[in-house]
């Protein structure tokens, strides 16, 4: 218990770092995932191919390798950014591939008849997309997106090993200060549980509010 009370500031900073990585990473992943999903369902061949390559490559890349390449590789091109930004970039790009697949699967669950009916009522493409297809797709993608974002929060631990301030990294300082390692890890675990369970709670609420009534 002492470990937590004595180092509340340190733990707070770490938790904040994890939350920041998760939130910014999620935003980037959602934005990029949306773009890639729209590429993958586009009627234009080269965009579809680009989206497919993006998803296939990133889904099969170990995240550690991606971190390694982004954190240590981009500076070779003269791109120097704070480590946290690099971490968000790596996390966001990696997760965008999974978000893209979830969104595409969601769009594909909308029956063809829905779009046909919308068009036969004279709706334009934008209206069809915004008023008919996307609202229905949104309902069915809530659970998969939720689990993807939880995975992102858990993956953000890797950033700690690349010297970004976040929860897992606090063990090093505590270790040097001579606190019990086991207890410091227990509190780190509690921190992660708080983050993952809150994301889970948010998405359960969303699911309850907007999910498809089956």
């Amino acid at each position, binding site marked *: 218990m002492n470990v937590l009370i004595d180092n509340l500031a340190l733990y707070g900073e770490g938790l904040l770092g994890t939350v920041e990585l998760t939130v910014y990473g999620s935003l980037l992943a959602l934005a990029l995932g949306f773009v890639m999903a729209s590429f993958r369902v586009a*009627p234009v061949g080269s965009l579809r191919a680009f989206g497919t390559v993006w998803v296939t490559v990133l889904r099969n890349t170990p995240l550690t390798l991606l971190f390694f390449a982004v954190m*240590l590789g981009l500076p*070779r091109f003269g791109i120097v950014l704070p480590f946290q930004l690099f971490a968000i970039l790596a996390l966001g790009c990696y997760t965008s591939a999974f978000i893209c697949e979830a969104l595409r699967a969601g769009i594909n669950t909308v029956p063809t008849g829905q779009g046909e009916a919308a068009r036969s009522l004279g709706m334009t493409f934008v209206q069809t997309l915004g008023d008919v297809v996307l609202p229905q797709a949104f309902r069915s993608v809530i659970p998969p997106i939720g689990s993807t974002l939880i995975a992102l929060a858990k993956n953000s631990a890797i950033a700690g090993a690349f010297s970004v301030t976040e929860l897992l990294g606090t063990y090093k300082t505590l270790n040097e200060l001579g606190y019990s390692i086991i207890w410091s*890890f227990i509190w780190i675990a509690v921190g992660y549980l708080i983050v993952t369970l809150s994301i889970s709670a948010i998405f359960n609420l969303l699911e309850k509010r907007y999910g498809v009534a089956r």
Partner: protein
Amino acid sequence: MTTSTALYDIPGPLARRRHRLYGVLATIVILAVVAWVLYLLFDTGQFTAAKWTPFAYEGIQEMLLRGLGNTLKAFAYAAVLSLALGGVLACGRLSVHRPLRWAATIVVEFFRAMPVLVMIFFVFVALKVQPLPALVTGLTLYNGSVLAEVFRTGVNSVERGQREAAYSLGMHKTQVMTYVLVPQALRAMLPTIISQLVVALKDTSLGFLITYEEFLHAGKLIAGNLDYDLPFIPVVMIISPVYIGMCMLLSWFANWVAKRQRHSPKTEAVEVAPPEPGTLMPGAGPHP
């Protein structure tokens, strides 16, 4: 477009011409980006002979191969052990004894909600274990818990009639499990199990962070060598295709199995799930 979506009609001649124009424009943009990246690579001197000579030396090739061997070794241990742990935990969760079920549920939910890296670091730092056992333990705990959920959903998704028929033939619960439910569930779940193993293979690279001498670690050693002008980008260019290739091969295998199973009469009573990366939601969700 061969598949029809709700998004648009089958394009007519005018729309097809427009799409072709977009296609040409998009191709130009993509090629421009590729060209820019290539220019950057050349401009920062990534293709100079000095940076690529190390890969011609036998010692360095051996080091890379040894790293790859260590990666595969960790993967093999983790795969076998997590399948075993998954089986045990799934038995626990499907048990008729309530305390056993609760204990298994707590274990599964806890390890699924924890980042793998926290477990690996805990075993490595707090329990002071060698890197390989630490890595394997972490991977086993996480993937075993996820696989336990996969096994459990698999057994539960076998049509109810199968279980009822088995009981009415006078089988007892172990027989129902081993002769009727598990064989069907395993076949149907095979694609998902394989894609969870892809996750395990990808996560072996976490060993790099606890100084386990695996593939990425070997790459790091070469990349940090001043004699060869710090060949960082060449190392990434050699390592990533190997990693991505291995994972893609395994994912492709999972897809192939899934496609076969869908037409197989042996899995008729179970709905074959498409292979998905194992990131189910902890807690109450659509997958209880």
